[in-house]
């Protein structure tokens, strides 16, 4: 059982009978993590064929979706797991409010949850930009202009977050790096901390 050390840390060996019912949580948090794992695996696979960039992004998505064997399934899986994750994450938040699980002493975990929610939305948005279609270019331009409204640091922030997307393609190297490396690693660490805090705060529920 040596390889289960971390799991043993976040879950006890015995639990009260009452929490066995799935209706407590509907497993929404755990399913969100499962979706995150699916997204990680399919995203890793997509990286082998996707080429970020103004002129290459959309073309490589087309190639993945139509030419590469099983490319469309992997991409669809990535897309749908992402859509479902946004849904499960939001339902998970509703459940937490419903069961009053955000209250002291669990406020810190609630805050981490809110941060994760924002991260997931940003991940969803950057993923949309990487399609590199006209619509993604419009979305990127709108986002850059909105961030630019923040006085002082807005322009620089937009540059760091999105690079210089054209109005006809949101696929830039900067967005790619954030979507595939920066944000997922950050989200993964926050999630592991999130799970560990559940045990620390004394909770055992269906994930």
């Amino acid at each position, binding site marked *: 059982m040596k390889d289960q050390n971390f799991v043993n840390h976040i879950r006890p060996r015995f639990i009260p009978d009452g929490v066995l019912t799935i209706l407590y949580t509907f497993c929404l948090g755990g399913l969100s993590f499962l979706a995150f794992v699916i997204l990680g695996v399919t995203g890793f696979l997509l990286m082998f064929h996707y080429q970020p960039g103004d002129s290459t992004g959309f073309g490589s998505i087309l190639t993945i979706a139509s030419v590469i064997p099983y490319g469309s399934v992997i991409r669809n899986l990535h897309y749908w797991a992402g859509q479902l994750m946004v849904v499960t994450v939001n339902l998970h938040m509703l459940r937490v409010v419903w069961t009053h699980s955000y209250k002291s002493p669990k406020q810190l975990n609630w805050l981490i949850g809110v941060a994760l929610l924002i991260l997931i939305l940003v991940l969803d948005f950057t993923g949309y930009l990487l399609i590199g279609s006209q619509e993604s*270019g*419009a979305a990127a*331009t709108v986002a850059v202009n909105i961030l630019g409204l923040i006085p002082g640091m807005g322009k620089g922030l937009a540059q760091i977050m999105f*690079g*210089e997307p054209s*109005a006809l393609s949101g696929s830039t190297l900067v967005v790619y790096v954030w979507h595939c490396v920066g944000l997922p690693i950050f989200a993964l660490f926050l999630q592991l901390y999130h799970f560990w805090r559940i045990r620390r705060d004394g909770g055992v529920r269906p994930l």
Partner: protein
Amino acid sequence: MPKQIEWTRRAVLRLGWFGIIAASTLSIDPLVKYLTSKEDQLQSPLVVYNKPLDKNSDWQSAATARVWVKRDSRGAMALVASCTHLGCEVTYHPNRKEWLCPCHGSVYDVEGRPLSGPAPKALQRAAVEIKPDGSLMINTAQQVEMDYRA
């Protein structure tokens, strides 16, 4: 006896923390400069339009950039097709004689003045230079008035 600094565990840890905080503060500025550098994506503000352009033509798109050109009896003009609301690319619809923005539905008249939607001001005009061979050189960095003609 001179006073000596005692290297207790606490002092070392405090020094370590101080070092980490100092190093992070000092690296903010270089990091921001590194991340916001645009040296690898230089974009020239100059756009060339070298197709024949009739007198009294309607707006024509310069396919390589978000610039449209037109010529009337007084000369040539250029318009930058970025919505003044949030920067989406507007398109000229010749049958309606209007510019439409796909994102939030702003509508501009044929001269680029806002008619409806959230757009706050008219579409930007750019300076044009007519070359000896008849092609147009548009400088998108140089903003001009609506009645400007080359």
